[in-house]
């Protein structure tokens, strides 16, 4: 799954309000690592349903960063986690790593 995060949605939302854009990026930079760490903890402790809850939140970050394929993947993964199936974890982590790298560039 090759998809690059971008700020198209954020820029559309901000318009010429650069202060908002800056503030919003800061919020994502703060919120994403916390949610990611929570996700990894739930996987580590074999808590798929709790992991599903946080995947639900993380998928909104995919949305915000215009990652449509990643979002669809997360929707499916969330459903599987609700059933106790964590097999998509490795691929999901790749998406998280992609965003982590991207957030360092903005």
């Amino acid at each position: 799954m090759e998809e690059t995060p971008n700020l198209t949605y954020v820029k559309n939302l901000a318009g010429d309000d650069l202060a908002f854009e800056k503030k919003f990026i800061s919020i994502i930079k703060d919120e994403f690592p916390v949610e990611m760490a929570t996700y990894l903890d739930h996987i580590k402790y074999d808590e798929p349903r709790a992991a599903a809850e946080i995947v639900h939140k993380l998928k909104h970050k995919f949305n915000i960063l215009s990652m449509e394929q990643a979002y669809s993947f997360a929707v499916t993964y969330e459903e599987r986690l609700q059933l106790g199936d964590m097999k998509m974890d490795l691929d999901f982590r790749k998406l998280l790593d992609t965003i982590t790298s991207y957030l360092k560039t903005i």
Partner: protein
Amino acid sequence: MNCIIIDDEAAARAVVSQLCTKVPELDVIEAFDNAIDAIKFLNQQTIDVIFLDIHMPGFSGFDFVQTLKNPPKIVLITSDTNFAIEAYEYEAIVDYLVKPIGLERFEKSIQKIKNSTIRPVATNNGEAHESKEDLYINIDRRLIKLKLNDIQLIEAKGDYIEVKTDTETYRVHNTLKKIKEKLPEKTFLQIHRSYIINFTKIIDIEDNSVLIEKNVVPISRSNRPELMRRLNLL
């Protein structure tokens, strides 16, 4: 129009807040990361519109809507379109926005708010039994008088119910449904399929349970909103 935003994600709150700035008539008064704080706020202030996330930990958007006695207009915000049908069962919910929300769709939602009218939600004040102070229970062909104020809780146990008072526990061959009809709704509240509690005897509420004297009583998900609505939260 004064509005508040309720969403447990900071990024989501920021998105809605920014969208609101594009609509001159909207004034964001407050944004909350949980429903409980919003309920406390609404006990003090009247607002016109709530932008409400459905999927929040512990207390969902629908739980929240059910706690509101006279709800303002509500716009639900979610990523899950499966909730749409349930959403429209609530009179106060005027629209349903799916994340990520674009400005054009948001503006349509505001138009829907302006065009909508909400009928007051019918409430049951439970006046029927309020003059009664006693309850007679039948045990071994004896009618025993209980003072309603002494009853702490009633628990269903198979074909029987147990009525716990301040001094004794009585086992009665009856159903929770029947005894509920005899109790004043203002004082007694069913908080679980198997439990009715005397609202005035609550000592504390923690997560999904209520402490009544020394009894820890579970709160079911479906009964929790009504319990929260009745609390005089600070």
